[in-house]
């Protein structure tokens, strides 16, 4: 990666004094991840350019510098040795730290003066597109020009990569330019090669003094600089005298957020939990299974009802069950409460005798995550095998998708949904299952119903 800083201030070679680097020499420094070099591709009275080059050791990134510890990355095929990233911030502070601090032994008056400066970064990963670059640097008074690099020149149809050659020009103090780059490069890249803790909040506030407080994109800057750690971001923004806004989901964030975002205005999830809880209470069940319990939202709701003497949550993913245990605070529960609930790793498509003998099972927003060809195995395992007295099952109503403005027609609500059913399709399936396994079934909608498309979620209650 390459950073160049140019000036046409006269005499331009004063840039050397400001950076404390002689323009005719090569300045090399070993860093933990490789070598940083400063040299001057041009140095005349009229124009002077300093270049900072990082030669990052790609093997050390994966294997670490010693036999004891691995490096911060697990892949060799990574852009980290080549792209402008938080490694550049480290190099700026190590090689150009005095200049970033605004001090100069020989030219302090110049260091205190805004100068015509141009910085060029190649290749700068700009996550979220060049407009993010504009949002970050334009308010600080820079003029920007960018050139996007194609993903692969041999395949124009693949489009552009996230990398830019970005040029920022402005009349600024050198210290400010370096500070802005130090903070905003990792923000643009939206990742850091090191662990971010509370120190990082202080670093951000210290480096941001004088410009970050009133920066219109300070929310974005704080969030990305602090690696999306919500607690840290809140702390930083609080000290910038700013209440944190609820986070809007960004492109890269969890897929689940997408579905939630679609449904968020009506708090559909809460209403679903209430409707399912009511349906389970109405069956008179005391021993209840939550199949596909995820992180335990329904279980937490069901625990509040004394009627449910025994609750068992089942999920296929061990790490999801771990999170459920944390969220339910199982390890801190009073012993009597703790005896009411258990979490099991299981699967909807295998017969599991541990699930026999329950009064009711909740299967909430789960079947649409199974391939259609696996549904018969699920039906058999639950309705013929475990055979609870009642089953409360919900799934999205596909018809309702037409009302989601953000959802392209024909698309499903969640990338992992294998299918979504219309009300008629759901009714046909549930009726067939009920007949085959000798259950009665009734249907209900959850959420505000649309006059044509029905309710967002559909629910079937099976009983025998």
């Amino acid at each position, binding site marked *: 990666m390459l950073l160049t800083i140019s000036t046409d201030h006269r005499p331009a070679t004063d840039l050397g004094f400001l950076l404390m680097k002689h323009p005719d020499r090569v300045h090399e420094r070993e860093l933990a991840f490789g070598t940083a070099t400063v040299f001057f591709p041009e140095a005349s009275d009229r124009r002077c350019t300093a270049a900072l080059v990082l030669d990052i050791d790609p093997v050390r990134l994966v294997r670490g510098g010693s036999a004891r510890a691995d490096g911060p990355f697990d*892949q*060799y095929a990574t852009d980290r040795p*080549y792209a402008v990233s938080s490694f550049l911030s480290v190099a700026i502070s190590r090689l150009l730290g005095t200049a970033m601090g605004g001090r100069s032994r020989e030219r302090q008056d110049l260091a205190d003066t805004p100068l015509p400066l141009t910085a060029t970064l190649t290749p700068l990963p700009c996550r979220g597109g060049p407009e993010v670059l504009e949002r970050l640097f334009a308010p600080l008074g820079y003029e920007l020009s960018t050139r996007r690099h194609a993903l*692969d020149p041999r395949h124009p149809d693949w489009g552009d990569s996230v*990398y830019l050659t970005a040029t920022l020009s402005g009349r600024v103090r050198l210290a400010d330019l370096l500070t802005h780059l130090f903070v905003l490069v990792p923000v643009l890249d939206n990742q850091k090669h090191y662990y971010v803790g509370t120190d990082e909040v202080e670093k951000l506030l210290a480096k941001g003094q004088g410009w970050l407080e009133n920066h219109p994109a300070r929310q974005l800057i704080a969030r990305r600089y602090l690696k999306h750690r919500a607690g840290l971001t809140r702390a930083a923004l609080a000290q910038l005298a700013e209440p944190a806004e609820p986070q809007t989901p960004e492109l890269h964030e969890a897929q689940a957020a997408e579905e939630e975002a679609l449904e968020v205005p009506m708090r559909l999830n809460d209403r679903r939990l209430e409707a399912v809880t009511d349906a389970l209470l109405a069956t008179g069940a005391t021993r209840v299974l939550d199949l596909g319990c995820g992180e335990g939202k329904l279980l937490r709701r069901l625990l509040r009802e004394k009627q449910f003497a025994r609750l068992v949550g089942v999920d296929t993913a061990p790490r999801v069950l771990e999170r459920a245990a944390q969220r339910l605070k199982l390890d801190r529960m009073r012993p009597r409460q703790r005896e009411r609930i258990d979490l099991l*790793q299981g*699967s909807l498509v295998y017969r599991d005798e541990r699930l026999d003998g329950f009064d009711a099972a909740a299967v909430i927003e789960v079947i649409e995550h*199974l391939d259609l060809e696996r549904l018969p195995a699920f039906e058999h395992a639950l309705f013929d095998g475990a055979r609870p007295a009642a089953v409360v099952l919900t799934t999205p109503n596909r018809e309702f998708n037409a009302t989601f403005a953000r959802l392209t027609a024909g698309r499903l609500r969640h990338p992992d949904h294998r299918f979504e059913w219309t009300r008629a399709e759901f009714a046909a399936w549930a009726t067939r299952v009920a007949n085959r396994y000798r259950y009665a079934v009734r249907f209900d909608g959850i959420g505000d119903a649309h006059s044509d498309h029905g309710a967002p979620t559909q629910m079937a209650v099976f009983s025998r």
Partner: protein
Amino acid sequence: MTGNTISIPEYCLVLLVGPSGSGKSTFAARYFKPTEIISSDRCRAVVADEESDQSATSDAFDLVHFIAEKRLNARRLTVIDATNVRPEDRRSFVDLARRYHALVAAFVFDMPEALCQERNAGRSERDFGPHVVRNHVRALKRGIRRLDREGIRFVYRFSDPTRVDEVVVERRKLWTDRREDAGPFDIIGDVHGCADELERLLEDLGYRIDVERPPSGPAYSVTPPAGRKVVFLGDLVDRGPRIPDALRLAKTMVDAGQALCVLGNHEAKLVRKLKGRNVKLTHGLADSVAQIEAQPDGFADEMLPFMDGLISHYVLDGGRLVVAHAGLREEMQNRSSGRVRSFALYGDTTGETDEFGLPVRHDWAAEYDGRAKVVYGHTPVPEAEWLNGTICIDTGCVFGGKLTALRYPEMELVDVPAARVYCPPARPIAAPEPSGAGDDRTLKLADVIGKRVIATRLSRTITIREEQAAAALEVMSRFAIDPRWLIHLPPTMSPSETSTRDGLLEHPDEAFDYFRRHDVGAVICEEKHMGSRAIMVVCRDDTTAGGRFGVDGSRRGVVYSRTGRAFFPDPETEAAVIDRVASAAGRAGWWDEFATDWFCLDTEIMPWSVKAQSLIDQQYAPVAAAAEAGLGATVDALARAVDRGVDVAALAERFRRRQARAGAYRQAYNNYVWPVSDLNDLRIAPFHLLASEGAVHDDKDHGWHMAALARLCDADRALLFATAHRVVDLSDEAGIAAATAWWDELTAAGGEGMVVKPLDFVARGKRGLVQPALKCRGREYLRIIYGPDYDAPENLSRLRQRGLSLKRSMALREFALGLESLRRFVDRQPLSRVHECVFGVLAMETEPVDPRL
């Protein structure tokens, strides 16, 4: 006790038993080290400052137990110096000894009460009343005669104080302890009366056998090769045709110091029968009884003490080798208890029996992590295979298998095939189980989760750890295709050993070396296609799909990835591919040739980009874009500095080289990328015909596979293409050179490289199963994996340090499981039995292994 010498095992628990003042501590101090003696008085002082503080007794005994447990766990002789006069006092120590497999010896001080009272009176710290000693004496008298029934093996009783002073206590090694004997050994598995095979095996091992035949029966004399010694692993008797001769031969050699023999469960039972106990004449015992009865008089009387004197196991060669009939856990080695004996004889049984009425065995070897190698028999296996430093060498000679010997320390296996099947196995090697007709509703969670132990024909049992199974459950439940179609998952493949040639990480030399080292004579080199691995199950028609695979008949085949996911996102493409391949099979005459309505292929589907486009978009292409942009700009800046006379020439040269490597990286992945708009853009290279009705084709060599598949490919050259390959005789240097040149050519043209396989589909060397395939990837291909700059000398030297052993061990286990699943499907075993193997492969794949291998 004989004379004045008492001999106790060097590892045991010694209980001193006697009233206060009976002389226990004085006795102990004379024969045992202070550290070996745990005194209850001393422990009372440790916890309560006063030896006589009776209120601290309970805590003091907790401490006695705690110390005793630590010592026994470390296999150290331990002396309990407490009164131990009541049975309940002794029981807890006997239980402890049992838990750590220590024999118990008791020294009983049955002294006159008056003497004890007198001794105590002279000691200020024992100011308890005379009733205390009186009670001790009474309690001791009550239980003294039944000590041996309390589980105490050796009881030595003193009732005369002068006698105590006369004895000498000696320590002797356990019978099992032959650590000083370093061999070399020829360890022989279960003979079961197969004396013909035993004689031949001994001769193959270099032993000369002379037989004289007086009327009293044959008399053997054996001349071993210099210094060598046989170890019989027990089960010499039952089932086979020449049981008396097997016994004679073994006894002769043991008596002459030419052999060791451990006890097998069949000898144990025969001994009980010969001693007149009521024993059922099952599992071949009737053969022994009949054959022994037919021998001259005195034969049984001669053999009974021999068999009765056999012990459970031996620890040999400085503790590096343990032999036992059914194996032995580390915590039982060189110890003695009923449980040690029972484990050594019967193995680790769960108490359940299987569908053949035989005990279900727990696979202790799968968990073994002891320091000693354990060589054992007892459970017939098709082939002897090492697992965690253990090896079972019972290869079922009497069942028509072979008689196997392990040469130690050479670790070579030598075997002699059985002349015939002398006895049908009770648990058939290919058990014809009722077909479950592949109903996926029969799959039970309990059959896949938790720790799984799967018996395969190819290898021994394979253990799936609980976490691996847990991690695989989500993938199998949510992403895999219908399990009825999932009859195989392919094994992972290890690269060859790392090359030290300039600029290379892999080269065919190392692959050829590996196979030569593992006794493989000929290999096949196949061009490695850079696409995506796919398994294809193809049926002749929909009816076959419904009938044979138990599915609803909506498709006539599947194409799935190495993790069991549908290869093509849309069913239409999959159906079209299957139709084309089925038609090709028809034109190639396969249905008749193999008398089948279905077959299973192992293939590579190209281009790589058809499955990997998102990986290319998100990982590989961005790396190239970043590298080209950044390095290009840097090279320009450095050039300008050079023009100015700044001393950066070396750096400029370095970055020019990096720029060139970035270009090579771009080119490397582009070799495997082309746009796919329909079927005509796909290319499929089948390389194994894995199975068809009635057959898993692992008994044919790869030449056969290549020839059969070439006929299929000829029938649809637009979609299918035969894999280029060449067979290499590993003793032919010219052939090796030509194959190496071919690899150079393939990789220079941007090819991934080649796969080197033993010509036999399943190959075994002296050290067991050989890797089924090794890949040798080309320099440019590896750039995609290791990054643009990987072959810079300073990087390559570090990347060469990579460990292959986990990858190879996984490859073998997955290979065995993958073939096992096919075998079970072909044998029409229930879906759950097929699925357990496939699930096992997926579970293995959750193991974190360096993804670049």
